[in-house]
């Protein structure tokens, strides 16, 4: 049997309900399928309600079986919200990449003073120094708002992701996939958001 874990590109997407985590995961996987690859998206449960933590495992590659990523096997954690990006760091592989939106949606316990924010500096120290991972912070929600709506955060983040080294899909397939899968009213805006996201970081 051939080894396939290495050959797959594994991303954990995370955010809060209403941010379009699952749609972003679907767009990614659909682009991979269009490009002739195999893809799986494993979702964490989502009830109808907004606001809770939502995450999805996305696996892209030549042959993919498992819809879930093992801990420590993700190439990238893509956090659409700051705290959610940190929540799944146990999935990140050594030397992996954390791409995280700086936008914070404060949990109620924090506002009530019952718990504290993790110190971003400390987190970055641990991730970078102890784990030789890279961290990219982007203000995707601000960028999305400037394009037209905070709802575009997910496609801005996909644009950033598409610049990462080893990312296996040509960006043209992503644009096609956005066209096919996003709500028709938002197609053009989403493509604009995606292209803007691509310019937020240099090619890695």
């Amino acid at each position: 049997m051939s080894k396939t874990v290495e050959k797959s590109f594994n991303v954990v997407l995370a955010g809060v309900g209403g941010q379009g985590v699952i749609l972003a995961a679907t767009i990614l996987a659909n682009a991979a399928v269009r490009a002739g690859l195999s893809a799986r998206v494993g979702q964490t449960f989502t009830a109808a309600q907004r606001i809770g933590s939502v995450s999805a495992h996305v696996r892209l590659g030549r042959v993919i079986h498992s819809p879930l990523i093992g801990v420590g096997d993700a190439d990238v954690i893509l956090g659409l919200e700051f705290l959610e990006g940190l929540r799944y760091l146990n999935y990140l592989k050594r030397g992996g990449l954390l791409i995280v939106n700086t936008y914070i949606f404060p949990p109620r316990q924090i506002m009530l003073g019952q718990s504290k924010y993790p110190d971003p500096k400390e987190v970055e120290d641990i991730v970078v120094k102890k784990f030789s991972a890279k961290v990219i912070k982007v203000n995707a929600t601000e960028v999305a708002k400037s394009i037209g709506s905070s709802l575009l955060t997910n496609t801005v983040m996909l644009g950033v992701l598409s610049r990462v080294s080893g990312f296996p899909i040509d960006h043209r397939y992503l644009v096609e996939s956005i066209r096919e899968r996003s709500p028709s009213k938002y197609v053009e805006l989403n493509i604009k958001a995606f292209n803007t996201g691509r310019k937020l970081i240099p090619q890695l």
Partner: protein
Amino acid sequence: MSWILGNPGNRVLLLGNEAIARGAIEAGVNFVIGYPGTPSSEILAALARVADKLGIYVNWAINEKVALETAVGASLSGLRSLVTMKHVGVNVAADPLMTLAYIGVIGGFVLISADDPQCHTSQTEQDNRYYAMLAKIPVLEPTNPQEAKDMTRIAFSISEEHQIPVMLRSTPRLSHTFGEVVLGEITKSSRKPSFPRDPDRWVCVGPTALRRHKILEEKQNKIKEVIDNLDFNKLILNNAVDIGIITVGVAYNYVLYAIDKLNIGDKVNVLKICSSNPLPEKNVLSFLKRNRKILIVEELDPIVEKQVLALAKKFNIDTEIYGKLDGFLPLVGELNPDTVAIAIAKFMNIPYEVTEKLSTTDFSVPQRGLAFCAGCPHRATYYSLRKVLREIKKSYIVTGDIGCYTIGKASPFNILDTCICMGASISMASGFELSKASDVVIAVIGDSTFLHNGIPPLINAVYNNSKIKVLILDNETTAMTGHQPHPGTGYTATGAKSKKVLIEDLAKACGVEFVKIVDPYNLKETQKVLREAIEFNGPAVVILRRTCALLYSRMARAKGIKLKKYAVVQDKCRGCLLCIRDFGCPAMIYDSSTKKVHIDPFLCTGCGVCVDICPFNAIEEVGQ
């Protein structure tokens, strides 16, 4: 979502549930009915979107028992019928299912049971493959979306050929997994319904039942052979290796992942089977014979494992067999790549270090507790209920039920004492009330749940003269599972109009004399009616009617209706945090630098309830 109608040969990304829907379409399904339940709901929803185009019947039923029985009628008329539900739904539908296996079917009959290992969205993680064994019907267990489609299609043929209902067992890692699927030919069905009248078969009592049981037993061997010969059973062999893994369904994916990660592809044989009832015996036997030891990896209960043990015993095979019974794999919770890798490493006696990972304890990320959406009418209801219960100075018990409103258990309301299954809020409340366990007993139930299984317990409360207070939280939809319509909404799964069944009429017809309807957004009125209901000397029903805020804001956006918006006048806010502590609307954000609360205009749905909650009148409407 036109892709489920794509052309044969197309390779498309489908959700497992969409793949099941496509499989049914390819099989020429005529009749689809079900009751919502995660993770099954998207199957019927996907079919409803294309029903008119395909000319098939698709609708939601009031509950799973009714859904299954309705489909029996369609199948006996010769139509290919699909019934969808979650695992606990099969508990509700178990009664007709058992007899259906006896009488058999005419048109292919496929029952989707969407199980929920890990209780992601359920009250149990029961293994419904036992239902297939109990009813003596075959169960197919797909591994991925492609198989979900292909097995659904085959399930219809097996069902029709052997005149037996077939179960397809899913789990969230199938139903809610996206993967590529190559589409097949669509069968255009032109079946004319016709019921072969035969009371000696369809009136299943006494001697008829016994005769039908015999027929069911006689089918078993033939079906076993069919299952044994399916291509979905897969064998991966390495020459001269005598260690093997048997797996089934979604677990196969984790086995492959683990083998890969442990780099033991050339050191172990794998048999993946497609059914645990009947067990593909020939496949299993020859695998048993060629391996000195075997690990069995399956989701939930050790059903395959016990059968393999029995088979080995029967054929005097001394292969060592490991699995869940000896703790190699956990009996509780769902499998994942890591639990499976750990088990396989232990089984193979190879060292395994869990991949070096960042510990989540290196820094803690605060949890997001369960919370109602901004503007949720349930939040307003619970706010009032809590206020009233604090004021009445009587002991109380609040029995809960299943739906978005179960979140009332969580902070800030912490108000629900029980929740076991749909409808139980009302019956359990009667039990508490008749036992005199407290002064006041309140049952909280949603509209969809009331219709599903709340009516008989309400009649029973009246009949037993149990003075319970039933709050029906009517948000005019089945919200938790994705906003499906129900008989109280006046429209069907395909969006067609139907007669609206009024909950107030039902409550009155059950014999309840106190039936009142209030808008939970109106806190004062709600609290007044709640007090009256509590004081009323008899069973009372209060219907709290207000559309689900998430559904409403989506509808408003689609129709271009602007929602009202509210804002906190910063000068008036004293930062007391009462709104966040006692009400907890997620649109209200506390800014620790200004020590004041503001309302996120993007999240606010304009319910305006917070206006009445702020003690300093700091909240005002600010237009749209």
